[in-house]
């Protein structure tokens, strides 16, 4: 006897209906790289698994009206192989390449990654600095959530019980910029982030800074950005910026790194990321995708 029923709706309407009927006990399935383990480990109990992979609309990956739309069923591999992502959203491209390994990226989705809402979500910093809108749908209709309000705490997010994330909507930046994502794991290759930071610098010298794995949820740190805005980048500013970073983050110590190591590395990685972003803004190396640590 199976522990749950399996549904594979073909349309969004059908999916939200099903999810609404079963909401308290239903689980949404995309790549399954997280969910299947949680079900195996009995971390969650479910009696209805709703597979969203047969809904064509959720495969959407396109530019429309000056926005990028990434459907819920777009995998990391599809992002990495997309020219649009590589050219116009290079930090999303760079961070997608850092997610786990090929066999996982072939299956795991960026929407699934943010819905799991773990503090170390690799895709979160890049989405935060691009001011992503999370579009959700339920039987009550659609609504949009700013990604900065989406994460609430470890494995907690702003979704209501019957809501499905249908896609991400990301504004195109109509000015030149440089960005980067720097991730540190315990070793090269596949590991969860000990610290991850994404930064962006635009041609009019507006800065954006976001982290994962150093607080209960991925965060953008505007107070630190403000200290840099309007200034050509120099490492000398980092002392002041650092104070704001330390005020904003609250890392834990765990099997992957101690608290104080994470704090120190938050500064080190920020410096590396800003240097790379600023250099890229000016059209210089390192190329996107190059190892930055």
């Amino acid at each position, binding site marked *: *006897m*199976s*522990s*749950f*029923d*399996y549904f*594979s709706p073909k349309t969004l309407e059908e999916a939200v209906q099903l999810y609404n009927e079963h909401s308290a006990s239903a689980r949404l*399935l995309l790549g*399954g*790289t997280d969910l*299947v*383990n949680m*079900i*195996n480990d009995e971390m969650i109990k479910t009696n209805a*698994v709703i*597979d969203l*992979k047969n809904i064509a609309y959720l495969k959407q990956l396109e530019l429309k009206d000056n926005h990028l739309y990434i459907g819920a069923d777009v995998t990391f*591999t599809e992002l990495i192989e997309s020219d649009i992502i590589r050219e116009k959203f290079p930090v999303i491209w760079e961070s997608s390449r850092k997610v*786990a*390994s*090929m*066999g*996982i990226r*072939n*299956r795991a989705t960026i929407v699934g990654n943010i819905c799991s809402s773990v503090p170390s979500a690799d895709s979160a910093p890049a989405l935060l600095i691009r001011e992503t809108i999370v579009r959700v749908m339920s039987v009550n209709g659609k609504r949009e959530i700013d990604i900065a309000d989406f994460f609430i705490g470890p494995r907690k997010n702003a979704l209501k019980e019957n809501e499905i994330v249908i896609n991400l909507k990301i504004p195109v930046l109509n000015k030149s910029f440089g960005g980067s994502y720097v991730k540190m794991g315990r070793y*090269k*290759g*596949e590991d969860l982030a000990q610290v991850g930071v994404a930064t962006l610098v635009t041609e009019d010298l507006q800065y954006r800074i976001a982290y994962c794995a150093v607080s209960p949820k991925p965060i953008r740190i505007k107070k630190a950005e403000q200290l840099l805005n309007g200034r050509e980048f120099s490492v000398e500013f980092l002392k002041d910026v650092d104070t704001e970073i330390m005020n904003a983050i609250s890392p834990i110590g765990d099997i992957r790194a101690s608290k104080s190591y994470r704090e120190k590395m938050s500064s080190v990685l920020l410096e590396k990321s800003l240097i790379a972003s600023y250099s890229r803004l000016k059209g210089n190396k390192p190329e996107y995708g190059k190892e930055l640590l």
Partner: protein
Amino acid sequence: MKREITFTLNDDIVSVYVESDEKLLDVLRYKLGIKSPKQGCGRGECGSCSVLLNGKSVRSCIIYAVEIDGQKIETLEGIQKNGITKLQRSFVEHNAFQCGFCASGVTITMTEFLRKNPYPKIAEIKEALSGNLCRCTGYKSIVDAIADATKEGE
């Protein structure tokens, strides 16, 4: 709730009854007699259960069999149907594996990777291999064998 799924397995169309929570790996091994994918960790971390799903390597231990209704699965049994491949020959020549438990998963992963990138750099091989754990070899012999099989001009 048992249901029938139909999918392409190494160029054959197969139908099989499965429970909703049965893993693809178990269905392949115990219902369809496909023994090349192995269960190592059972949680998506080691890669020993890798198969190609529509040409992409995935971990069959964390996929429910019901999810692959209508899809296309390839395993080593299909890939080496007409004799072992150049890559596999290189593995043999380099004595690349010891116990061999990881070999199927490594071969599947590299089969996908080399279709996309036939002349990879060593660093690219290592990155592509980073999700496949091998407890015996220290990887050097495996990487050497792949590098050798993909030398330009051969």
